[in-house]
């Protein structure tokens, strides 16, 4: 570490980024970001990606066949004498 937060090199600041961001702190107010165009750009990109992630992969319903298979498998296991709470030996 070299001096205060504003004296950090880009590498030093970026090494702190996961923790800084993970704590929910506004990294944009960090003194290094205020004075460094590259790290400001990096932070803006990461924020854009995190924002965009909200819209990814909408949740979907599984087809009805999935339950049918589960239902059959449960009945098979029960017919084999396997009770809930016991993990069968699978082939």
């Amino acid at each position, binding site marked *: 570490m070299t001096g205060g937060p504003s004296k950090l090199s880009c590498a*030093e600041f970026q090494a702190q980024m996961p923790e800084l961001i*993970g704590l929910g702190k506004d990294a944009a107010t960090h003194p290094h970001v205020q004075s460094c165009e590259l790290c400001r750009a990096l932070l803006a990109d990461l924020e854009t990606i995190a924002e965009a992630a909200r819209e990814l992969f909408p949740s979907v*319903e*599984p087809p009805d*066949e*999935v*339950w049918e298979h589960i239902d059959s498998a*449960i009945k098979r296991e029960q017919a084999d004498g396997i009770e809930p*709470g016991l993990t069968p030996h699978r082939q």
Partner: protein
Amino acid sequence: MPNSPSPTQAPSRIPSNRSADTPSAAAMGQSTNNVPSGSLNPGDADVLARAQAGDHQAFAQLYSVHKRRIYSLCLRMLGNVAEAEDLTQEAFLQLHRKIATFRGDSAFSTWLHRLSVNVVLMQLRKKGLSLVSLDEAMEPTPEEGPGRSFGSPDLVLTGAIDRLALERAVAELPAGYRLIFILHDVEGFEHNEIASMLDCSIGNSKSQLHKARLKLRDTLRTQKRREERS
């Protein structure tokens, strides 16, 4: 295979969806998207108790409540409908076998999610996909270290990112990064919950997420460069 769901996990409290005016810093650090909503209300607790006692009808009700979330997790991780269906089936079969061991010390939805994540991890390992070791996450490699993140500011990914491009980029992530990115940024779990699910440290979870975002940035910037050249 990772251990079966631990009944000692911290209770899950997934915040509700971020509001439109949520500061971006909050989005980066405090994920709240697509809130897993499988918590049981008092009436559902009765359903759970009956399912634990072997009531098949009650188990079917539990499936109905949680199927969407578990199937979506599998689909997001595998990117393949047939595999997602198989893993959803496997997750609920495991749930059926283990449900009696759930003691209610944690949210049932979190417990089930952890069980399902373990099913997904098993499948990924079986396929030999590049599951970046969670233990390695804190050690930046020359390729992924901080210096890699520099770039000309004129290539900032401003504005809306093309959703399909980002989904493709996510699909290309190493499975370990992808899992944490999806759990945190897409599904809205907090780092402490992810750490609990994956048996890793909170610092590891943060580091993996950061690396995942850096890799996505690299991919998207490369794509943008190509588009600008053509």
